């Protein structure tokens, strides 16, 4: 058996400890060890953005981080951000505008878009496109995603619901 290392992280507010191999990526740790399957894996190479999570407050490609590197860290995944309501408005806008088709890119897209709107709720369409450019979506052609993010930004700015 290869050596196992203890990893203790706080995931969506709850502390968890697992013993894992050094080579286990954070994305596989979340999916396989914790069964948080909302984090998707598309390329394992840092290109597609499907595995995006929040690690210590920063959006991170979880396929590029080893679980052992995240030891002591705080992680939020799409499940947690759904439960605490942080991205509820974005999810509603995505639903109403059909900004998802197969939904595989969607968790990563939502987390990236949420970060963008926190920094700049009045982002223009061009700025939204720029910021989302690390998240690959094969289905939508992006137009509806840009619409949904733009709408949510306007709502957040105006304090409208």
């Amino acid at each position: 058996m290869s050596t196992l290392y203890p990893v203790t992280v706080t995931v969506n507010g709850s502390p968890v400890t697992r013993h894992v191999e050094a080579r286990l990526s954070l994305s596989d740790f979340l999916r396989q060890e914790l069964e948080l399957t909302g984090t998707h894996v598309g390329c394992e190479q840092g290109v597609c953005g499907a595995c995006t999570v929040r690690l210590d407050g920063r959006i991170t490609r979880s396929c590029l981080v080893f679980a052992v590197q995240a030891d002591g860290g705080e992680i939020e995944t799409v499940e947690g951000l759904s439960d605490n309501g942080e991205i509820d408005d974005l999810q509603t806008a995505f639903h109403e505008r059909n900004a998802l088709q197969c939904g595989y890119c969607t968790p990563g897209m939502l987390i990236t878009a949420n970060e963008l709107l926190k920094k700049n709720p009045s982002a223009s369409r061009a700025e939204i496109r720029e910021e989302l450019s690390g998240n690959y979506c094969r289905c939508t052609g992006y137009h509806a995603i840009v619409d949904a993010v733009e709408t949510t930004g306007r709502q957040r700015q105006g304090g409208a619901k």
Partner: protein
Amino acid sequence: MSDNSTLSELDRPNSYIGRSVPRPNIRRLLEGRGTYTDDIVLPRMAHVAFHRSPHAHAMIKSINSEAAAQVPGVIRIVTGRELAEVMTPWVGVLSHLAGMKSAPQHAIAVNQVCWQGEAVAAVVAENRAVAEDGVELIEVEYDELPVVADMETALDEGTHVIHPELGDNLIFQRELDVGDVDAAFAEADEVVEETYRFGRHTGVTTEPRIIIADYEPAEDNLTVYLSSQAPHMMKNLYAKHLDMEEDKVRVICKDVGGSFGIKVHTYADEMATVALSKLLKRPVKFLADRLESFVTDIHARDHRVKIRLGIKKDGTITGMEFDDLTGVGPYSMYPRTSGIEANQVVVLTGGPYTFKNYRAKATVVALNLNLMCQYRAVGHPIACAIAEGIVDDAARAIGMDPAEVRRKNLIPDDAYPYIANSGLTYEKLSHHQCLDKLLEMMDYDGLRQEQAELREKGVYRGIGLASMIEVTNPSPMFYGAGGAFISAQDGVTVRMDHNGGVTASTSITEQGQGADAITAQIVASSVGVDIEKVRVVSGDTEVTPYGGGTWASRATGIGGEAALRAGKQLRQNIKVIAGAMLQAEPDTLDVQGGTVVDIDTGKERLALSEVGRVVYFRGDTLPKDLQPELVVSRHYVPKEFPFTFTNGIQAFHVEVDTDTGFVKLLKCWVVEDCGTVINPQLVDGQIRGGVIQGVGGAMLEHCIYDDNGQLQNANMADYMVPMAVEMPDIEIAHCSSPTKDSELGAKGAGEAGTCGAPGAVMNAINDALSPLSAKVNNMPFTPEKVLKALGKV
């Protein structure tokens, strides 16, 4: 043929048809609570990884797996020879594509490897990482063979024949000669010609291919969880090649992370996984990693076309001829074959136009590259780009505006039914209406004026148009007639439970397009209940009717009609029961909003939950001769025409930076006629996604092989896909010519976007470059190719 001139069934009170209802049942995807196949964990599930050939063509001399077998956690190592005892090989030909030939293909190579990435041995282990450790320790000795990588020389004498028993490297050839092309060219004032090339590219679904096969030996049952578009087709093939009773095989498609034609084929590694499960008597999972996706997911579109077109000074096109050459893989893909794309090019090219002299030839050759097969819009992007490209050349040659040339030659809107050069009938299209709408929507004249002004300042903008037809809703003439068990019909079963809730199980499948949503809309409308009361079940061969699935833009046109018919009959059955309960004539009643009402006054008479309560719990109170039936199945297959045709037109506006060769896509407009639109927002989503997929092939995506058949860019960093920043907004409008073959009248819209985009983008770039006497004709149009066209590199 049904009469849908009144559209009564579609216009019912509270109809959901034609409304942009948000898709039910997708909030879970937004919360990360979907179930994609990779999310499924079964007891005793083992994982397989494959040792894959590094060579494009070689004989396998020996396989040494001793070291791999020592790795702790490795369960079993299986070679092609051993697996062939469990699974029979297959041959990807269809009998109605005359003369097509291909060699038997095994799940794992037995003697000969024919492309880089073909599986040579399987390592089954406790987890994927251990399986991969085992793969690395397998030693295979190869005797390399000459690699056939160039389609231009594949048929030359002296070129190595990949499968000597077939005699040559020809897989399929198709010719069509209509009218008198030579006379048409003699009569023309100008004959223009060009050679177009299309880069091999692939689907890059965000979710890679994945399968879990669970063979249970006690009852000889096989359950396969598969990310797929055609579960019934696969059920048949697993049974056939494992020598099992088909009834013992169940295929389940949970959430599918994109498909686009990638996930509708029989992949050798997936077949191997199923066979391994049978061999090991336990569940086995295979998930393609991204490298494996690039070397094994089907590729498409590798075509070279030489085309000529004759035109008179007044803009009349007199005739067209072309020669299309395409190099597919070492095998024709099973069971849909690798000949369909070329066949579609022959059938569809120039299809929107009235000219009657047409000579087409397509040749499909075998190469030692990954297999090519049907990918979203199959052949259409090539057919559309070559015709639209050469029409623009002709317009330039006679000095006429490209929109005018189209107006002059597009089939008139009152000329239907119209028999095309292919011999197929267009029931009803709307080219001129679409053209007019497009030019107005984009302010064509304004853009032309702006273009002229900017040119003065050295800014090169271009406008490109692409008129198109799309073939959808294939009848049994497409595959069934060629001997493949690929169903052209679909079925829907609707069931009302005691509380008035309705469950619809459909044989069409959901991969994100919204098949479940349109089924819910149609069933809710035709039964007469709120959409919240409808649940849709799809993607499970055990619980849905037998059917084709979702491909060839067929789900709405065929599965939607079955849903309409089933829902109507359920409503009728409810009216009969309610009539007995109310002592009223059934025809005086209707079902609206989950309530039985008087048809004339709309007065509420009986809740559906009351009908359900009596039927399921107090049947004793109903008349003795009334057996209530609240489950109804209906099926539909297109009969009137072998194919449905849709039409549309696209325009791109681009700006070319003549110093860097970079093309900026400024805007795209689409006018589409897909007949009855069930959900405009979903149709627009299909068009937009399709357009961007087409743009990918035109501008970015390319599987680059070297002369040795080695794929040079098999990862997402080096294979470019469209990302948000480079892509334009897309404005969409609709015309509607419903098909009368069905009551619903829907024609399908899944692929039209992909069909038109490459041609429209190409024409826009060449329009921008035209004052500089430069032209591109070789997709993808990278900055380097643009600079080459400008003579700058």
